[in-house]
């Protein structure tokens, strides 16, 4: 699961740096914005079958790779 999410993140952010530091703030580093975030949610739904609505989470809940992994895992269970 974790590996798959990192693959998705790498694709959406168009940058392999996301793997280097899983606690990096992706919004502050300009790796994620509103558009990339929407793409991320679609990819998570398509590839992992986990549905997260855009207004369901705040940016602070999903601003690092680790938080995203945690969120998807908690929704998957």
């Amino acid at each position, binding site marked *: 699961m974790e590996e798959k999410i990192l693959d998705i993140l790498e694709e959406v952010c168009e940058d392999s740096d996301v793997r280097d530091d899983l606690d990096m703030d992706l919004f502050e580093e*300009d790796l994620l*914005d*509103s*558009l990339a*975030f*929407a*793409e991320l*949610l*679609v990819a998570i739904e*398509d590839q992992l079958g986990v549905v997260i*609505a*855009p*207004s*369901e989470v705040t940016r602070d809940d999903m601003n690092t790779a680790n938080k995203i992994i945690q969120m998807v895992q908690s929704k998957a269970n």
Partner: protein
Amino acid sequence: MSFFSGAPFFGVVFIIAILALLLGYTERPLKWLNVVTSILVVGFVLVEKPRQLFFFLMFYIIELVLVKGYLKIRTEKGRQVATYRIAVFLSIVPLILCKAGEIVCLYQIKWFQFVGISYLTFRCVQMIVESYDGVIKEIKVLDFTVFLMFFPTFSCGPIDRSRRFVEDFHKVYKRQEYLELFGTGLEKIFLGLVYKNVIATIFFQIMEELPKATIMEKFIHVYSYGFYMFFDFAGYSLMAIGVAYMLGIKVPENFKKPFLSVDMKDFWARWHISLSEWFRDFIFSRFIMLSMKKKWFPTRLFGASVGFIINMFVMGLWHGPSVHYILYGLYHGVLLALTEIYQKKSKFYKRNKKKKVYRFVSWFITFQLVMFGFLIFSGQLIAY
């Protein structure tokens, strides 16, 4: 009485603040104070215009039935796209009728024209959409009523979200935490008063007194109007947030130094934030997600550009069915699309974006674009 102006309103707020302080200091719930004061204050404001009061009550009943009714259907029948879309559409019908009444040829239909309807509609749509998402499982009538009628944010926002609001509404604060919240609220109210009644007034005076003869004077007019807009609205928002804090509700912020924005995307992350985030979460993101799933567009960037333009077009239209508001929306939509394309495609941008000189030039250009946007918004573009 009207919201956030004049002695009667501030007199009432003063009394409410003392009651809130007494409850908060003794660690009692603020819930019932919120219920009673919201109904009373909104009632007092609307009762002076019986037609507005009537349409507000109609609006309240219609939206309550829609929100509760849709949630019931959603719980029993699951996610049905058609019912969901009908419910969302019906919930904005009152707003559509209200705005349609502003078009000259339809001037006779003055339905649903009451203070606050534009902002209240956001809250109702949000509850229906999040019910569809499965994020909202329950909406109590009392929670719905106070969320809708909470008096500090009734007429002009900030646009709060129901789940966040309801959590605060039921919260009982510890003394220390409440006193800090109350203090912050007080600071915000004073800052808001200075913004709105001192600084905005100065810019307004400049616009009133200064002739528009030379180019220089015209420029000063445009910039004064931009600053007036900011200090007037940000001041109002600060007061609304401040009073809400005193009542234990941490309403979201609305402005974050918008004139320091380095690009147009940055601007919309700093200007009327509760509005732009609402549009982001309920229109832009959903449009992008749907268009990706259905593969409407050949490239992501193309889809994003269309998304920005539609999003801002609706935002413009929401201000009112006038040419200048629609132009204002389209202007920002096109600028956001261009910004997106530039930032994704330009190697020059990627190389230089972190440099100080680049950021300064980018800030300067953004500032002019923002000010020109206000000129469109003012409806005075042709007059210049």
